[in-house]
């Protein structure tokens, strides 16, 4: 149909219960086969919820989802039972922030990878274990034969994250979802994992959606960036476009707050205030209360989405004015 690996159209996710939270509001996003997209945003912006919705991991009783999600032509929101199980792990799999929590402490890492392979590929244990060994090699774990028989607690944080990646990729998914996979790691280990993911993406040709709050990480790993704020995408483009020519005031604020080239001792251009609570569905620009350029129109209606070029968009009435102002 569209030729996209992922097609999310007008997605809304609402958590109900003691209070209602409008976590995702009218989100539209596409990912082509073999593309790496970074979802960049702060806590509560809805980036992890987007990933969990893609994998149908949200508790059905307390979540209202509407909109459309297609992954490789499959309507994800209607999947159930065996089809959903096959979809998870075979088509799409996920790497989490805390590999220590995501892996089972009472099985060896080899058994855990083999279990997933046996389940999805229907092969015998010996064959599954040899796939596991091959995966440990591909994620460049030293002495993989020995590591296969290790339990998670015997491995360091960086090794565990490599195992997690090996597990996620063992069934060769078309789409890998990565939820802050390097946030809990040390700096010298983080860069190793980022470069590993970059290499594996190229090698396997899969699509990757990489959730992060760290712009530097997004730059290292992605070719496209979508910036999220209050459950919406406020700006999207290639990594180069978003970093070198940010159009949305929020993106600009985030780039300044990264301190990459802030002069020592100079006052930082901090974005004032805090993100909105999302108790109600936004009916105006969510960023307006914190925006230095806000005007009455921003508070009156949802901002128009400017599309300066193909697959580039900015949800701000000032999106074009910025260029002139510079």
């Amino acid at each position, binding site marked *: 149909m569209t030729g996209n690996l992922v097609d999310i159209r007008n997605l809304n996710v609402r958590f109900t219960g003691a209070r209602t939270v409008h976590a995702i509001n009218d989100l539209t996003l596409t990912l082509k086969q073999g593309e790496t997209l970074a979802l960049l945003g702060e806590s509560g912006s809805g980036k992890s919820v987007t990933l969990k919705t893609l994998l149908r991991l949200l508790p059905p009783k307390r979540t209202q989802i509407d909109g459309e999600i297609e992954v490789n032509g499959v309507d994800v929101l209607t999947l159930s039972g065996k089809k959903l199980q096959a979809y998870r792990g075979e088509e799409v799999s996920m790497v989490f922030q805390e590999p220590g929590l995501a892996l089972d402490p009472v099985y060896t890492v080899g058994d855990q990878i083999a279990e997933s392979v046996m389940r999805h590929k229907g092969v015998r244990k010996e064959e599954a274990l040899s796939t596991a060994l091959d995966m440990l090699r591909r994620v460049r774990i030293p002495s993989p034969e020995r590591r296969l028989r290790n339990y998670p607690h015997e491995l*360091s944080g960086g090794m565990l994250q490599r195992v997690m990646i090996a597990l996620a990729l063992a069934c060769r998914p078309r789409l890998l979802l990565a939820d802050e996979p390097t946030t809990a790691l040390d700096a*010298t280990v983080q*860069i190793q994992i980022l470069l590993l993911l970059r290499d594996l993406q190229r090698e396997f040709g899969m699509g990757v959606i990489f959730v992060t709050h760290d*712009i*530097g990480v997004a730059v290292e790993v992605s070719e496209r960036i979508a910036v999220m704020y209050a459950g919406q995408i406020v700006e999207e483009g290639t990594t180069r476009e978003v*970093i070198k020519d940010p159009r949305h005031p929020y993106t600009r604020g985030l780039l300044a*707050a990264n301190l990459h080239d802030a002069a020592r*001792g100079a006052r930082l251009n*901090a974005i004032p205030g805090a993100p909105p609570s999302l108790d109600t569905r936004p009916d105006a620009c969510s960023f307006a209360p914190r925006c230095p350029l806000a005007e009455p129109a921003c508070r009156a209606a949802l901002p128009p989405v400017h599309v300066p070029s193909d697959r580039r968009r900015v949800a701000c009435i000032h999106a074009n004015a910025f260029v002139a102002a510079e």
Partner: protein
Amino acid sequence: MSVTNPLPDGLADKGGPAQPLLIVRNLQKYFPVRGGILGGKKALVQAVDGVSFEVKKGETLGIVGESGCGKSTTARLLIGLIDKDKGEIIYDGQDLGGTLSLRDLRRGVQMVFQDSYASLNPRLTIEESIAFGARIQGLSDPVGRARRLMERVGLAPDRFAQRYPHEVSGGQRQRINIARALAMSPRLVVLDEAVSALDKSVEAQVLNLLADLRAEFGLTYIFISHDLNVVRYISDRILVMYLGEVVEIAPVDQIWSSQAHPYTRSLFSAMPSMDPDNRTMEPPLAGDPPNPINPPSGCRFHTRCRFAETVCKAKVPTLRPLSVGSEHLAACHLHDLGSGHSKAGKDVLA
């Protein structure tokens, strides 16, 4: 520099401007852990081993390093949250445990922690939390002091004083923790990853606040963080730790332009590039940091260092100035002409 404290009851300056506010000498802390299959044998985590440094009055010293390098243990030793095994902590010329009591040390040195929620008592209102220490120490008008400080850190007392910690955001809670630390009129504030849990946009606000308070109250900071950009922004000097030891100390501009220790070099090159046209191609180091339970012999970095030779395995390098009188210190055989390292004195890092 003359140091004045606008809040009443601040500790008087004892040593004069030339006396470093804090001197740490050969600080050591080993934690016993159970080792072996049956938990019989005791092993020791060498968390902090022979750490020495000084903090001058009015400066900000940044401490960087990866997890397990001992930066937080150092912070906790400094304010006496845990007892040191060995070494000296000298605050404004007075020796902790000698002429200086722990109670007095904590008037002078306060701390802000990473987890803003866990470090507040959930059953005290914000006003009570901030006033608590001042009341215990018998300072005048603890509540008025708390309200003035709330105002100063950007929390309107009328709106926030009676709220509980769970009712405010993470950024606001960290402002409360800062106000609480300042309620004792300290001269040194130890900030242990104080902005690390905050979102970037909120982090910038809190950094601005910290810079303003430093100027206004004449504060001295020890700023611990894993984020090199933040440390560079706020610090005058940077201290780098690896596996419980200090490997390099230097003024921020010097260390930013040329790192003397191979570990510092790797740590700096591990920072993600901010340029999409110039991404990192090669990780500077392989593997994870070794376990501090059984650290490598000699130079603890030799197992991951590409310049390592036999001397690095055999001999512990000492922290020494790069040249006579230099403020830039490093603990590496490459910078010690008499070390026996074949590349000693040669500029191999560049």
